[in-house]
């Protein structure tokens, strides 16, 4: 069965220049393995292909547990010079949560 990440995880977006950071935090720690396996850097890059032009790097925080995605060239020039509405990309946490994953 396919579900949205929104159903099992939460996220906060942050920005540094033209780089977007997205956390992905499971509500239940037992869902972390599923996120680790399916929400790869490549899968996120593909899901956000209309938004992120550059590389996506994934960090695993086993201590929380959570994943952190760092997306390059994601904010069309950055906070101050971008023509987009959401220049910080602050709303993009919910773009990540639109991604679908398979659950047993």
């Amino acid at each position: 069965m396919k579900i949205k990440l929104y159903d099992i995880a939460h996220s906060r977006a942050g920005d540094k220049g033209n780089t977007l950071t997205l956390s992905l935090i499971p509500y239940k720690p037992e869902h972390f393995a599923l996120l680790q396996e399916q929400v790869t850097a490549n899968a996120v890059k593909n899901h956000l292909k209309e938004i992120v032009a550059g590389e996506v790097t994934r960090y695993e925080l086993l201590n929380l547990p959570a994943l952190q995605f760092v997306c390059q060239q994601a904010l069309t020039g950055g906070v101050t010079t971008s023509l987009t509405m959401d220049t910080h990309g602050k709303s993009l946490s919910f773009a990540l949560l639109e991604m679908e994953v398979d659950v047993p």
Partner: protein
Amino acid sequence: MRERIRIGCGAGFSGDRLEPGLILAERGNLDYLVLECLAERTIALAQKRKRQNPSAGYDPLLERRIELLLPVLLANNVRLITNMGAANPLAAAQKVIEIARRLNLTVTVAAITGDDVFHQLTGDETALETGQSLASSGPLVSANAYLGADAILPALATDAQVVITGRVADPSLFVAPLVHELGWSLDNWEQIGQGTVIGHLMECAGQLTGGYFADPGRKEVTDMAHLGHPYVDVLADGTALFGKVEGTGGTLSLATAKEQLLYEVMDPGRYFTPDVIADFTQVRLQQAGPNQVQATGGRGQTRPETLKVSVGYEAGFIGEGEISYAGSNALGRAKLAGSIIQERLQEQFTDLRIDYIGSTSVHRTSFGHYPDPYEIRLRVAGRATTSQQAALVGEEVEALYTNGPSGGGGARKYIHEVVGIISTLIDRNQVTPTITLLRV
């Protein structure tokens, strides 16, 4: 040396609410109150204001915040550390003195300067973002190095009750009082790493206590209208217990703390500040009670030899125009309007953006899931070199009233002057923080 201190954070950005800081000062039992009010863009804009008026360039809300807080801070013996000095900490300190005089209060204010390195740069330095020289981005308007906790410590050794800085790394505003009060060492990477974790969790104020978190039905936050800002009790061994004032709204939980711990973190194992390269990957968060979270395990390794410099440059103007369409085929009519604007402006603008608010304006896509909405707002934005050119965007959108599709309404037009931000690195030995004490 103290065994424990309590620091509150009453503002997490320049435009933050005033009331939570006042509640912390009144009822928080604080030793220190921090107000973090300075973003990269904020300081560049402040430098522009200072250029027009040498006594301007500090935070626009400074006067209102200080008038409200100063009597309470002094009565309760709470020290204030804030970066509201922005581009002009000296003028900000003088303004605090002026307010104290008006309120018949006695106060010592420390202004910390030295972050402004504009005159030390040639413009030939390489921008980290572009790989090109700074000057190739546009005429430079400001350059501020990120100072660390070491810049604040000498002020804490004086009798100053108010410490006003310009550009200081946000976590350093918290690391400084921890080092000063708990007898920590700036060279003890474990202490400074944990202090940086504490500062990072605190620096966005309400974002730790349930602000920017709620999603009704899924992520519930209590009484958001009265959202309280956080304080933290830190023990000499670094153990940090985060809480908020009894009776305030908001929610402080593992989930809110996790979101904030990772906020704007580019590499959780190597989080760079002027004080330390901190490691967040061993941090342990525990729910210690209702609205209480404990954090331990922040670490660090050495401090960077260079400081980051945030550089502002003139980036021209942005012109914007908006108009709404509603009812049947709203998106169709908005798209027709967008194509008309594109055709009318394409020769004057190389960088023109057309958004359909209500459909794809924020994420640039709707992931294919969502049907046409009942109403759509067309938004057009174009980059221009002059304000006259920028004005054309709004003029053409407004002209859709009589020269565009059926049923457009509520046209608005805007012009913004744009300051862009890039960054470079400077050797820390080239930056000399200075303290000026003012008294009344």
